[in-house]
């Protein structure tokens, strides 16, 4: 299997396809031809995109089959404003280039116990669902997908899935004037139904609100927001007490990623603040910790004795970790 260097894999761009006016699909394989680390449906990676003198770390869901680790596929929607990482992917990256890509992490897995899986997506938010549907169709789960697009020219991915899964896929906005209504989709569902939503914040909030209004509990509602992934913010520096190394965390990367880039191995599993694996003791702190995880309790946060390096940051003049 591929070697991880400084927390990232060296992947070759095998193919770039324009699937809509704004979305390119990239197919990667390991530069040395080895197998890639396995992943489950709903996983994402972060692509380290060279941008002028800096590096953008954009998170993209894996859309290729979880049962084929000879390649990874992602879809990148070009956004012209903002930090322009996606623009660099579209303009500068060519077939044959080698990019650094982090190992997959999954904060959006399918439920193992669901009786029915109900996927709702907007635009490029359909990408994690590609891999989830593949996983369910191989494992044998009952599912349906409702996908909203902005017009026929943006519907190519939806049509691909419709060709694969037929009536289980409904595409809204592909020229027939149909509109996705989340309350109607969620209403009257049998017990044990799980919903998964990925798309713009407004759509995610709309589905969560509709599910709550229909009496759904949290354990049946799963979502991934475009802006959720990764840890960005003001730069800060941190000292790893065991080696004495001082690590500079840039605005674009997490503490964990900065430590890995500097050649240090810290424990991790989910890379999303959920699993608790990277929990690290804080030895000294002058300033405040910006706790962004779902792991530490409210009282643990207040003591500032623990930090989750995969997501949390600090505003500080001094931060020393027992790592």
């Amino acid at each position, binding site marked *: 299997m591929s070697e991880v260097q400084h927390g990232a894999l060296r992947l070759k761009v095998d193919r770039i396809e324009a699937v809509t006016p704004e979305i390119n699909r990239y197919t990667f394989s390991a530069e040395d031809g080895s197998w890639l680390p396995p992943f489950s449906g709903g996983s994402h990676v972060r692509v380290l995109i060279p941008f002028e003198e800096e590096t953008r770390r954009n998170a993209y869901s894996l859309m290729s089959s979880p049962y084929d680790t000879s390649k990874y596929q992602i879809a990148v929607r070009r956004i012209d404003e903002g930090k322009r990482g996606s623009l660099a992917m579209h303009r500068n990256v060519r077939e044959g280039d080698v990019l650094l890509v982090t190992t997959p992490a999954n904060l959006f897995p399918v439920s193992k*116990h669901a009786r029915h899986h109900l996927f709702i997506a907007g635009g490029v938010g359909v990408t994690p669902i590609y891999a989830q549907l593949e996983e369910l169709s191989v494992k044998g789960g009952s599912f349906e997908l409702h996908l909203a697009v902005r017009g026929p020219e943006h519907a190519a991915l939806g049509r691909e899935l419709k060709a694969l899964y037929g009536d289980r896929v409904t595409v809204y906005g592909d020229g027939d004037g149909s509109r996705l209504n989340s309350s109607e989709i969620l209403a009257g569902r049998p017990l*044990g139904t799980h919903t998964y939503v990925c798309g713009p914040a407004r759509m995610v909030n709309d589905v969560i609100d509709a599910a709550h209004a*229909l009496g759904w509990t949290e354990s*049946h509602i799963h979502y991934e927001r475009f802006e959720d992934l990764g840890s960005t913010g003001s730069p800060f520096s941190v000292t790893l007490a065991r080696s004495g190394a001082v690590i500079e965390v840039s605005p674009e990367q997490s503490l964990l990623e900065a430590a890995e880039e500097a050649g240090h191995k810290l424990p991790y599993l989910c890379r999303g603040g959920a699993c608790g694996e990277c929990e690290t003791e804080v030895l000294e702190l002058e300033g405040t910790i910006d706790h962004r995880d779902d792991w530490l309790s409210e009282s643990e946060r207040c003591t500032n004795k623990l930090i989750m390096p995969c997501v949390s940051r600090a505003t500080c003049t001094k931060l020393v970790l027992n790592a």
Partner: protein
Amino acid sequence: MLITGIKSRPVYDELTPMASGLRHVAAAQGSGGEPLLRLLGEMDPAQLAATTVLYSIESFTGRNHLADLKKHQVRDLFVFPTNAEAVRGLDTVLATAQMGTRLYLSGSEGFIGTSMQVATSYGMNRDEVLREHAGSFVRRVWCAHCGHYSENVTRRVFQCPGCERNLVVRDHYSGRLAAFQGVKADGEVPGELPEDEELDT
């Protein structure tokens, strides 16, 4: 609430209306009628009108709350002579139930456990279910050798009605089987039985 050193024994809740639910199903047995009556007393008329009650009059301690249950204006009240029939009735109700339903269970550990198996089979999660124990802590025991389930076990050592082996009841509860584990009592030295005792009922 009984506190024991048995880590695998479920931690029970207190029944109270779950306001986020649109439909409510409450199943109780024997002494479980008491928490059920308290629950119905806390519900507003709209919640009562959206509530289906299932009650089994089978009871180890002999308590029957049916007369009081009939005083509440619920959507449906189904009465069953045995716990097993009530659990089958719950299966029928949940088969057509929809998302937004909340489940309330009260009674013996065996009744709550077997009802929970039904709820789990329909994909209900812990955040949709409240369980309150009532009455005796007699144990439901699964024989590790023949698979027989014995209800209302009160002694540490007893003879399995399924295979007639002498079983010792281990302090290990399986949520999946909804039972404590019973294993051959003289498996190490034939004829040498461990000391019998009254279980913490």
